[in-house]
């Protein structure tokens, strides 16, 4: 027999001002199964909790209803309180008479009546509650980091330094990401490579880190603590175990005209290559699309003739060229995943008014970084791509592919104001006679020392900032004409430029959406990961055990990315500090007698908690993996045969609530 | 008895005679000896700096030079505009290069050792306030006044070095001591149009009207000022404002020295209050102050 206690909270005046709490408690005494009912000013306070615990002992209560606020805040509080009094925590139910009642009504009489009905329903439900027990599962204390930019590097190092195993998967042949491509960093003007490459080397030599470059995540199964991941290791055609990275192959490769991804097309590379001199690993891969030997083989298959090459193979002192090497799939288990897949820059070729990406002397900020870099394609000389001449007048356009709804990018890219200011300053350092013009909408320099930096660029370096978006760029007599407006003076502006630099904004990394779907995490319309909570849980995704860092969740600068990486690392270390994970027992269960094996549940489950089980008779039925199930109830609603039920929210419980309301 | 070099400036010998008269009377009563700068010249006012920096510096510098010759340390200046020019040059003279150039223009060196202060500063020190409090013969009996400091007494603060530029208090303190009720208002240092009344009367009428409107809304029966230019713009233009905008303010405009003089027992006649273009005597008579 249920012996139910009802406790009505005043929540100060939050509830008591509109609900007659004493009257409600009085009414509750008459509900079926209720043996005790009372009211109190603050039940969540220690005195309030003790009142509940004392009543459990005194009245031998076996069910408790706390009529107060939304369970979102205090359900754990009261579950813990009743557990301390020896009751199964799932035999406590909350009746929300604040958000659902007192806060939204003004009439005291009506609110009191409604509060009474809410409690009547919950009493009916709690009478049918069953004790539930949380389960424990083990976990694999190994982290998977996806992405080898500065965020991924930092996260991997932090977790590895805490003593855990880490595998870092990077799509390109080297780690370093975009930061490796930068010449200097704002606002301190640190040499980007100088501060980054030591981290890259540390990572590659770390005993706890397994580095997998030229690799991609193919699939993710499982759940927090127990992910099973398939990783595609792309064939490098070079045996990295024997290769010493001596460089003979890439120096001698005759195919020297492949546009360099690392130099954003400003320079060329060979077919067997390392992306840049400090690449990690410092061993080459063969780009099969451009390798003359591979193309020779393909031609031969088509019955055509093409010259054989194999210069690298002939010259390699350690015989490390391996034409037979194939793509390989590695399966591994991880307890947590950090997604740090970075970003790409906006493709400005959609802007016809800026030349559809066709004018050679209209380049992007990232391209300028490569031109300014001493190890870049021009050895640090800033020249016009069209004729190799030094520019004298350089115009910068901010917000290209940012704050522009027409191209589907209404958001601010956060870093362009700062990197443009840095470029304007660096150009002056390269050549004091250069004139720079920066067209901007607003200057967004929110960061330590950022605003001061932008001021310095204007005041000390004399860069001419013009507030207004450029309308049109057109070539004229070997120069580029820029038509803009100085909105401060309200007058049109025309600048004749030798070089135009577009501050292209940040977009989600290529293939980001596919990756999010592979992992099973939520993302926004731009392909950025949605955080679990934008304020309070910024490095967690909506899937337990999957964290994020850097531009994966939207535009960020280096310090923000690194901070997030360390934050995500702490989350992982917190997870790995446990030997078992406790799972919420309020999960779905399948009545396998009723299940017809339609698997509609599998289709609707957002967490991949539905598994297939073959019964002895050969019948295939659904089974819920309780460690993965979040208790959302979608499967229960979808099941046509009523084979599914949600523990804590069974059909019987819910129907009892409805019935109680209708009978009242 | 403290002795001050006194620089009346051109207005106080003309349109603002009542300021000169009342200033001399109250200083005498409070034991401050004023010695008029011998053979003083116009400070250049609002015109010299419009066309020539060196003229704008040298004209007031000559007056400082004269004070140095008189052997006095401190010069007190009733006119806010003259004060601004004299104080500006006294700051500039700290730069040896500027000092040399000014010396060249003047045809003789000037050291810049003379301290320049506004008369409203000289007459609102705690010592003077205490002294005045003990000498009041006719308290101002709750006369509701708005204190108006204008632009140049307090701005720019680096040069003016007097009170504060937003919501100054010196005159307020003095007037409270005299028994006035000082109304709270927010236009104490808003510009009245300064030197534009002759060339762009329209602008001055507009700006002065804004000030008069605000003072009236704040409940003031009169405005108190320490600047002959402000006084002139507010006092003498009320007829034109009525003609153009229809607002009939009838708002008496006092120099702070006039009210101080009244409280110390000088009759309005002697203080030349009848000189105002906007009638001020009726208000005073109504309160038994004239």
């Amino acid at each position: 027999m249920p012996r139910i206690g009802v406790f009505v909270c005043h929540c100060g005046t939050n509830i008591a001002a509109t609900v007659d709490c004493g009257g409600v408690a009085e009414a509750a005494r008459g509900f079926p199964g209720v043996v005790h009912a009372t009211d109190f000013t603050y039940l969540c306070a220690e005195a309030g909790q003790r009142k509940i615990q004392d009543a459990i002992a005194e009245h031998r209560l076996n069910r408790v209803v706390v009529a107060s606020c939304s369970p979102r805040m205090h359900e754990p509080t009261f579950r813990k309180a009743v557990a301390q009094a020896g009751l199964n925590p799932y035999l406590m139910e909350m009746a929300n008479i604040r958000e659902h009642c007192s806060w939204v009504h003004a009439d005291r009489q009506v609110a009191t009546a409604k509060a009474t009905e809410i409690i009547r329903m919950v009493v009916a439900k709690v009478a049918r509650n069953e004790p539930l027990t949380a389960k424990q599962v083990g976990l694999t204390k190994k982290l998977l980091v996806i992405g080898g930019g500065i965020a991924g590097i930092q996260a991997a190092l932090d977790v590895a330094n805490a003593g855990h195993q880490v595998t870092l998967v990077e799509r390109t042949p080297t780690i370093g990401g975009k930061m490796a491509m930068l010449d200097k960093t704002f606002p301190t003007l640190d040499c980007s490579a100088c501060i980054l490459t030591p981290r890259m080397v540390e990572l590659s030599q770390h005993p706890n880190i397994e580095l997998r470059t030229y690799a991609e995540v193919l699939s993710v199964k499982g759940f927090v603590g127990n992910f099973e991941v398939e990783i595609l290791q792309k064939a490098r055609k070079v045996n990295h175990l024997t290769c010493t990275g001596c460089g003979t192959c890439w120096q001698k490769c005759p195919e020297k005209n492949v546009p360099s991804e690392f130099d954003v097309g400003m320079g060329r590379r060979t077919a067997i290559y390392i992306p840049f001199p400090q690449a990690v690993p410092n061993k080459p891969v063969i780009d099969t699309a451009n390798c003359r030997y591979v193309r020779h083989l393909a031609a031969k298959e088509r019955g055509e003739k093409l010259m054989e090459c194999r210069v690298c193979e002939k010259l390699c002192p350690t015989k490390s060229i391996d034409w037979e090497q194939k793509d390989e799939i590695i399966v591994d288990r991880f307890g947590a995943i950090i997604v740090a897949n970075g970003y790409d820059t906006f493709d400005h070729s959609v802007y016809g008014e800026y030349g559809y990406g066709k004018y050679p002397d209209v380049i992007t900020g990232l391209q300028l970084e490569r031109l300014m870099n001493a190890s870049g394609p021009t050895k640090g000389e800033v020249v016009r791509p069209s004729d190799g001449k030094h520019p004298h007048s350089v115009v910068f356009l901010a917000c290209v592919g940012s704050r522009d709804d027409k191209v589907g990018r209404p958001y601010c890219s956060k870093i362009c104001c700062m990197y443009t200011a840095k470029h304007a300053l660096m150009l002056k350092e390269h050549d004091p006679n250069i004139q720079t013009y920066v067209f901007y909408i607003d200057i967004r320099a929110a960061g330590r020392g950022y605003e001061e930096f932008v001021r310095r660029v204007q005041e000390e370096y004399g860069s001419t900032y013009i507030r207004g978006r450029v309308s049109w760029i057109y070539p004229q007599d070997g120069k580029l004409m820029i038509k803009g407006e100085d909105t401060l003076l309200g007058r049109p502006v025309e600048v004749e430029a030798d070089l135009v630099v577009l501050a292209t904004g940040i977009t989600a990394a290529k293939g980001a959406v596919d990756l999010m779907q592979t992992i099973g995490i939520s993302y926004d319309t731009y392909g950025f990961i949605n955080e679990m909570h934008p304020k309070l849980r910024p490095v967690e995704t909506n899937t337990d055990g999957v964290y994020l860092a850097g531009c994966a969740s939207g535009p960020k600068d280096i310090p923000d990315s690194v901070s997030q990486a360390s934050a995500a690392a702490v989350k992982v270390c917190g997870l790995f500090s446990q030997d078992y994970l406790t799972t919420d027992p309020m999960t779905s269960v399948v009545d396998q007698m009723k299940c017809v094996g339609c698997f509609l549940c599998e289709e609707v489950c957002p967490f991949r908690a539905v598994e297939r089980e073959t019964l002895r008779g050969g019948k295939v039925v659904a089974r819920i993996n309780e460690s993965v199930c979040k208790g959302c109830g979608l499967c229960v609603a979808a099941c046509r045969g009523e084979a599914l039920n949600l523990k804590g929210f069974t059909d019987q419980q819910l129907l009892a609530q409805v019935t109680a309301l209708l009978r009242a | 008895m403290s002795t001050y070099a006194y620089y009346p400036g051109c207005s106080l010998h003309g349109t603002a005679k009542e300021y000169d008269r009342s200033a001399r009377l109250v200083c005498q009563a409070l034991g401050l000896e004023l010695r008029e700068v011998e053979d003083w010249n116009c400070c250049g006012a609002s015109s010299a700096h419009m066309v020539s920096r060196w003229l704008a510096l040298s004209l007031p510098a000559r007056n400082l030079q004269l004070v140095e010759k008189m052997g006095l340390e401190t010069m007190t200046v009733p006119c806010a505009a003259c004060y601004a020019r004299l104080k500006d040059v006294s700051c500039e003279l700290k730069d040896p290069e500027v000092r040399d150039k000014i010396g060249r223009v003047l045809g003789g060196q000037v050291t810049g050792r003379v301290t320049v202060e506004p008369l409203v500063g000289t007459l609102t020190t705690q010592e003077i306030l205490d002294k005045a409090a003990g000498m009041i013969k006719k308290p101002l009996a709750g006369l509701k006044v708005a204190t108006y400091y204008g632009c140049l007494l307090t701005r720019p603060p680096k040069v003016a070095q007097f009170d504060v530029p937003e919501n100054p208090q010196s005159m307020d303190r003095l007037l409270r001591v005299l028994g006035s009720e000082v109304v709270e208002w927010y236009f104490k240092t808003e510009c009245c149009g300064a030197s534009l009344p002759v060339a762009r009367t329209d602008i001055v009428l507009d700006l002065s009207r804004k000030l008069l409107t605000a003072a009236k809304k704040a409940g003031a029966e009169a405005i108190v000022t320490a600047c002959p230019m402000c006084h002139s713009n507010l006092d003498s233009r009320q007829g034109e404002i009525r003609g153009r905008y229809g607002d009939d303010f009838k708002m008496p405009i006092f120099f702070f020295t006039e009210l101080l003089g009244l409280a110390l027992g000088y009759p309005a006649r002697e203080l030349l209050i009848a000189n105002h273009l906007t009638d001020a005597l009726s208000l005073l008579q109504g309160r038994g102050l004239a």
Partner: protein
Amino acid sequence: MSVLKFASTDQPGRNGLLALVKAKTGQDVLACYQCGKCSAGCPLSSAMDLAPHQVLRAVQLGQRDLVFQSSAIWLCVTCQTCYTRCPQEVDLPRVMDALRSQALQEKIRPAERTVKVFHDVFLGLVERFGRLYEVGLIGGYNLLARQPLASADLGLPMLTRGKLELIPRRVKDQEQIKAIFKRAAELELEEITGQSVAAAPPASVPS
């Protein structure tokens, strides 16, 4: 509306307007970040063709004509509100002074002729008498500004209240006053012709 044009061959500092202002005032106009607080507080901005921040903007962009032909430089009464409140501490009244005197040197027709006439008459009287002669100021202005009746309605009440001195008062040392005018003008010219621009004074020195 005139287009602001920048050729690819432009040199840093452009046509020297920034440097000129810097030399005359010690003010770095590039420090202005165009927040507009000066214009927001300026009692005259509604009457100006260029708002105060736009005057600085035009200086930043080297727009000489725009600046020198503006009414703004003549309507500014140097009330100091802008400078007092400027977050970047740009002494705009001083920049205005410099732009005005430069415009005069370059013989540019003032956009506010009457304002210029007023100051001419004022200084003419000071040069002649050493002090301002108010009756002479009104009379002289009315004559030159071709506004014979300006302020006439104020004349009689002022006269009857003894506010007007009919006879000018003079400084005894007339020679020194005349010499001051002469030598100040020479010094001004010397600076503008660039002979001693480098030795130009810095901004007003706080004590």
